[in-house]
């Protein structure tokens, strides 16, 4: 077709048949297109995902008959009441404390890494950073946890290193501490904490890196220009602007720790975390209502956490 033929009339011919007609149709009805685009996700999230969550929540309002072991399908708050029994409350407090400490430690460890990657790494160093952060995510979660169990075991490499440095006494002194100590690191809460920290760290680094990268360099120049020392620039400008990233990362580390039941089972003490409690209650104990009620706890805690983060202005800079 010559150029003249193409431009002969004011309206160009439809050259793509049905597909072309469809394009024209959607162009005239953009809302329909948006609807069709979100419909599959909506079906999946709305019905399969949220739907089953609601079904689960309903279960938490049922109760288990103590004598017969049969689930009584009547609305009651009795199951929630059970959460406040000492042994269950222990589980909740233990899990939430662990999640909080893991989150705090992740943020502290992740920030410098993320900061350097966002501010200074260029070209192949940046590629190396992404590879370094993502690589652990490609390896099997279970393999990594068992690897850590070996590292932390009494016969493991960490013990050996302490021995070579003649610091075994230091490790022993640490392990003799109440709560955080134990027979060896692999059967202590410290071990559980270290593995959690390792496994969730990438989820903290990446959002912080993204948020630091979005802070324009000229704001740092401006702060310095107006008399802010590097420390003041960090606390007054970089930190507040990176806060949404930290909160995003902490949502990952906090909720993932709240829900995990594999890590504390392999590395740590025999004391249960929420995830394990859910696993035990819905399985061996056959108490689905209590398992459901346990599941609601992290949801409520996360809701409170986000509400507090919002009130503290964590999302103001978004």
């Amino acid at each position, binding site marked *: 077709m010559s150029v003249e033929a193409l431009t002969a009339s004011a309206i160009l011919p439809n050259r793509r048949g049905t597909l072309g007609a469809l394009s024209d149709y959607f162009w005239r009805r953009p809302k329909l297109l948006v609807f069709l685009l979100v419909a599959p996700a909506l079906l999946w999230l709305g019905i399969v995902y949220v739907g089953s969550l609601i079904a689960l929540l309903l279960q938490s309002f049922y109760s288990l008959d103590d004598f017969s072991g049969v689930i009584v399908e009547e609305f009651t708050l009795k199951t929630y009441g059970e959460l406040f029994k000492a042994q269950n409350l222990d589980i909740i407090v233990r899990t939430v404390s662990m999640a909080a400490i893991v989150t705090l430690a992740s943020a502290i460890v992740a920030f410098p890494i993320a900061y350097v990657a966002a501010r200074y790494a260029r070209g192949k160093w940046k590629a190396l950073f992404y590879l370094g952060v993502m690589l652990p995510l490609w390896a099997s979660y279970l393999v990594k946890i068992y690897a850590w169990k070996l590292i932390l075991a009494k016969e493991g490499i960490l013990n050996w290193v302490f021995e070579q440095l003649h610091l075994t006494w230091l490790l022993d002194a640490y392990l003799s501490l109440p709560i955080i100590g134990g027979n060896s690191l692999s059967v202590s809460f410290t071990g559980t904490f270290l593995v959690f920290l390792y496994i969730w760290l990438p989820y903290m680094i990446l959002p912080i890196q993204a948020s630091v990268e979005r802070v324009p360099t000229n704001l740092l*120049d401006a702060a310095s*220009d*107006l*008399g*802010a020392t590097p420390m003041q620039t960090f606390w007054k*400008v970089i930190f507040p602007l990176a806060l949404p990233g930290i909160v995003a990362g902490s949502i990952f580390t906090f909720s993932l720790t709240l829900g995990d039941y594999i890590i504390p089972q392999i590395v740590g003490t025999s004391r249960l975390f929420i995830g394990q409690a859910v696993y035990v209650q819905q399985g061996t104990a056959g108490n689905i209502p209590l398992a459901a009620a346990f599941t609601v706890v992290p949801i409520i805690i996360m809701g409170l956490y986000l509400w507090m983060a919002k009130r503290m202005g964590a999302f103001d800079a978004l």
Partner: protein
Amino acid sequence: MSKLASIPAVSLQSVSRHFGAVRALDGIDLEVGEGEFFAMLGPSGSGKTTCLRLIAGFEQPTSGSIRVFGDAVEGVPPYRRNVNTVFQDYALFPHMNVRENVEFSLMLRKVDRMTRQREAEAALELVKLAGYGERKPGQLSGGQRQRVALARATVNKPKVLLLDEPLGALDLKLREQMQDELKVLQKTLGITFIFVTHDQGEALSMADRVAVFDHGRLMQVGTPEEIYRRPNSRFVADFVGSSNVLPPAFVQSMFGESRWASLRPEAIHVARAEGDGEPHLTGIVVSRAYLGATTRLGIDLGGTLLHAVVASTEDAPVEGERVTLGFSKDAVHMMEAEG
């Protein structure tokens, strides 16, 4: 020059800044007097912004020395220099409201809250933004952000205020208004202003003195009038103002000197009749741009194109018309020799 009192506000001695093989600035010598409104003019990539960043302390010179009120500032970080900057895109802190932005430098200096608020309000009043303190920068227009940036940079009374193309992002009307306001602000505060711009009109109309940069070199420093009337090089003549740059062969044929020369368009008399004893030439009008009170003509003199500005009257020459040009020899400003 009386403006250059005992100690210059800023002085640069053979300052260079190289980025690898790129010479962003090359051997600059410059003095800016106290209380002066000084413009650094040049096309993008000419080194004017680098020069500003060196004075602010964001960059360190590769060689040479910079003094601010007599003190050498080598190795002094920006936060210890009593020099503030108004950034091209304002660089307002998005998480702080206008008042917090303006108070920032005072807060860092541990000025008490009451004084801080009073000073910030006064600074905002000076830029006609009184009462805007509680708004966030995102809620302001470009012109208002510009004013906040000015208030923020002047609230702690710096010794020198650096302005990096501060009007670049504003539309024409607002820009003209801000030009006047900046002049007034500078007079009110009595601070040395160093102003970077690529807009020659802006530089000439606002500054006490202008430095013209090109390719990392300082081409000429002088009052706007000196720069405009007596450019020292083809580049300056070409970049500052719409002067005609006359090639050496042309100048040779008319004045017997083989040099480049500049001739301002408004110094050319255009007529249909023969001239009156002044050196005159004939040419054909090839373009015509109506500028309101005046009309700018492009005239082809058999290979050399000259621009002339005439009054926009009914009988101004039109395209294709044959005209004669006349100008006094004094209007022709000789520059560098051929080379």
